[in-house]
């Protein structure tokens, strides 16, 4: 199976985020990592390839720094990578991001496209589904298991409130992958070394521009949400904090 994995670089989970001067975006001087469900999507693609043969291609859209997620993907076993490289990709809405990805892989024939189910930054939860619509392919979201069969694939969708559902679908198809679908691997030293010789194709904004349009949803302002609740804050030396928590456990929670 030939699988395309869409991956995004997002600020590290623990990174202290600050707004930029005009409140249009965060300050870029933070550490980045791969968006978590995208890491699971890559892992699943590698596992499918190990079972059924084929090729795994990783793609990302973002500034130069984002090539790090592609290098990691190549080190873990992806065969090649595509980098839509331009800082402006960060500002695209989900529709334009999907259009850019579709344009970058035009002419290729994938059996499957994987994306993470949403990103930690925008959290649109849309890019994969939109991409399916643009390609004219069926899709399924929040996937926790994939098995190939004669008619295509049978996937397990996570539903709400502890429910799941199997869905049979034809190929080619787009799947959005949920964290926890598998256990992530680490890159090996050999993998990291081999990655250096694997193809990484760069695609400029100019090359896909014709496929894009203006963002039809406009992010006007980013800000720190107003606190709706006055929460009692407790800080200080651990031993004093511990005593105060115990007071709370006794007097308010009444569990002591």
């Amino acid at each position, binding site marked *: 199976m030939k699988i395309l994995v869409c991956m995004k670089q997002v600020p590290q989970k*623990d990174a202290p*985020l600050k707004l930029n001067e005009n409140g249009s975006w*965060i300050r870029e001087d933070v550490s980045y990592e791969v968006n*978590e469900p995208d890491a699971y999507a890559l892992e699943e693609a590698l596992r499918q390839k190990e079972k059924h043969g084929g090729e795994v291609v990783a793609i990302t859209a973002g500034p130069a720094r984002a090539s790090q997620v592609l290098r990691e993907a190549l080190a873990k076993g992806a065969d090649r990578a595509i980098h839509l490289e331009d800082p402006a990709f960060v500002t695209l*809405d*989900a529709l334009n991001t999907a259009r850019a990805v579709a344009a970058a892989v035009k002419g290729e024939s994938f059996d499957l496209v994987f994306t993470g189910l949403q990103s*930690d*930054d*925008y*959290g649109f*939860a*849309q890019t994969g*589904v*939109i991409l399916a*619509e643009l390609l004219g392919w*069926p*899709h*399924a*979201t*929040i996937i926790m298991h994939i098995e190939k069969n004669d008619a295509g694939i049978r996937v397990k969708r*996570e*539903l*709400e409130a*502890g*429910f*799941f*559902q*199997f*869905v*049979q*679908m034809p190929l080619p198809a787009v799947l959005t992958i949920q*964290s*926890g679908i598998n*256990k992530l691997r680490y890159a090996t030293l050999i993998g990291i070394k081999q990655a250096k010789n694997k193809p990484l194709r760069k695609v400029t904004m100019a090359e896909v521009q014709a496929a894009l349009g203006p*963002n*039809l*949803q*406009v992010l*006007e302002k*980013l*800000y*720190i*949400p107003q606190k*709706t609740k006055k*929460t009692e*804050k*407790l*800080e200080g030396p*651990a031993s004093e*904090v*511990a*005593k105060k*928590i*115990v007071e709370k456990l*006794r007097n*308010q*929670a*009444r*569990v*002591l």
Partner: protein
Amino acid sequence: MANTILVVAEQHEGKLNRVSFETVKAAQDISAAKGWPVHAAVAGGGIEQVAGEIAAMDVERLHAIDSPALAAYTPDGFAFALNRFIADTSPQLVLMPHTYQVRDFAPKLATALGRPLISDCIGFKTEGDRLLFTRSMFQGKFAADVSFACGAPWFATFQNGAFRGDQARRAASPRAVELFSIDLPESVIRNRPEAPFKEARQAVDLTQADVIVAVGRGIKEQKNIDLARDLAAALGGEIAASRPICDSGWLPMDRQIGSSGQTVAPKLYFALGISGAIQHVVGMKGSRTVIAINKDSEAPIFEVADLAVVGNLFDIVPPLIEEIKKARA
């Protein structure tokens, strides 16, 4: 034609998803600001009864988009049916709850109509004539105001809990349900869904626990979970976790709290190193007292906490266990 707001309510197997009332409330509030009347629709197969439940709400018109081909949910079927319905009724604004099902078909529907979807909104604002939607970003650390730069129809989804469903205005007398039948060619639907099921019965029922100590990724390593276990033991409570902890296999899945785990409302919910993502919070916000320890003073979990302990859990928890033991002795 006058601008209207269309609420797409959600049903599963003939049962209305209660979160639909939150969307009705959002629509009524926007209606109050903009003067646009509220219509509602529900799609499925044999859904008269569900439509009846919505009919109790104060909406101007109510449609049942009914077809045997919609009896089992598929993104192809729902996107096709709603596309037809929207073409027929031309709403200005289409509102839906940000559920798993809506996430599955709404981006497809909007894209087919060449329109964007502002997803996972937590509110709206008006600025003069303009309507802005507020959505949370960066896992709740920031919010953003977002506007549409295109004509109708506009699509937006609202996060679970963003509006109070119990405050949705009821109708004096129930609306008549207008049937919208649709001819849905079989070839449209490519996916073959099987019946939804639950995984084998859960070994632990956390809903019965009075005290829950929940750990998140702030616990850093699997072996540190013992620290949380000790705290739970000192308090006579159960241990639970955020999703990433269960994804890593550090605790079994049946200890997960949140939208894809258990929903609990104990007397005390003690959150250790949990950031407070919405998918976690929906599973524990009904707790009577919430105490959270987090080293980040801006962590969203503090929004639902009664006591926000800002600090390193590894410094605070060991002396806390000692203090609890003393208090219990």
